[in-house]
């Protein structure tokens, strides 16, 4: 059932452009640049030649999650709830 929901909300997301919305908001608020700077540090640390995707992912994702500003988070949650409410009936 859970996977079913996951699939469904993936479809939700695509259909309602939530992904794009989030990306736009994050860029706008500077989250992206912050994270990119962090990436640079990681790369310099690990060495330019040998950095892998996994390295980056492991380092960056948790920081990224934290760095999302509250306003963006709240707005997104609102939208998600709204869409869910629309389709719950």
């Amino acid at each position: 059932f859970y996977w079913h929901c996951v699939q469904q909300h993936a479809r939700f997301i695509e259909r309602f452009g939530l992904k794009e919305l989030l990306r736009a908001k994050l860029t706008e608020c500077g989250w992206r640049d912050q994270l990119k700077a962090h990436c640079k540090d990681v790369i310099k640390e690990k060495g330019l030649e040998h950095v892998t995707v996994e390295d980056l992912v492991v380092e960056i994702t948790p920081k990224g999650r934290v760095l999302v500003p509250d306003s963006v988070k709240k707005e997104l949650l609102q939208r998600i709830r709204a869409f869910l409410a629309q389709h719950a009936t």
Partner: protein
Amino acid sequence: MKMEDMSLSGLDNTKLEALAQDIYSDLVEDACLGLCFEVHRAVKQGYFFLDDTDQESMKDFEIVDQPGVDIFGQVYNQWKNKECVCPNCNRSIAASRFAPHLEKCLGMGRNSSRIANRRIASSNNMNNKSESDQEDNDDVNDNDWSYGSEKKGENKTSVNPCLNVFFVTLAEQAHLYHMLFSFSGELSNSVNADPYKYNYNTGINYETLGPDELRSLLTTQCGVISEHTKKMCTRSQRCPQHTDEQRRAVRVFLLGPSASSLPDADTMVESDCYDASDGQVLMSRLQWDGSSDISPSDSASSKASKRTEFRSTFCTFIQWRSVSSHPLLSISLSGTNNSDSKKPKKKKKTSLGLNSTGGGGGGSGSGGGSSSQTSLVGLSNRKKKPKLPVPPAPSIYDNLN
């Protein structure tokens, strides 16, 4: 959608909220992953660090925040006091005046009297260059009068550019006169052996001409010297502004007592000449616009105001162009605009001219045709040689209509 509806309807609020949170974190992770992929690709492709420069360069290009200097550190008026040497005249010119000076110096700008210079040059060389025609059209275009360019492809004579040049420098309404004298130039081409000089020099100063030239000029022109401007009248032998006595006096004065007989107008009068003298009428009107009060005498043509006369002959030439076969038609049509009420000289002329060329000459011509017959007849009677019987001309014109 149907399946989603079915599955979601069974959820309560807490689960919905949990679901929402899940979705949210999914989205954020997705964004992070996207960023990671981008960065990684940039690193591997080698363009990740491109927007960073080394510290030294960063310092060089730092934003400057001092007074009197812009953000690049440059002073505002730095080049104002510098002087450049003009390559043309080799003078040292201030930098801020350099561009206008160059315009004048090279004779390429709008107010650079390049026409005047060209006139001088061509009067020295008596050359006819095709560029001068084009430049005239540039002048013409400069003055927002595009009709002149239409005539360009047709008869290029040695007279055209010179005439145009002459009247540009003379009058303020130079563009109109351009038009006119391009026509009159073509027309008078056949008449005078030395048309350029004829139109150009005599209008200015009789002193510069030799006796032979004077004689030849006096056989074709009225020649009476105006008191105001000390210039010879360039109108025809029958010009209404001066009497025969005056003409005789001038000839005596200029050529000596033996040359006092007025030459017969017959010899010079041809169909083309008439139109040429019409052009001279306009030319002299040009001069008179600037000088003071010469009251028109009692000819039919001068009874109309100067303006309408001018306009009429203007349209004459235009219609002549459009008809392009019968020069006399222009005479018959010259009266057409006498009945027009006063209109601003410049604009109406252009519109009239354009109308004429557009074939609207028929409309305007037939309207004024009948009323102007008398004036036409009066006009033509003043010539010793009838300019072709006037009645046939309007009939031809009607046929054209």
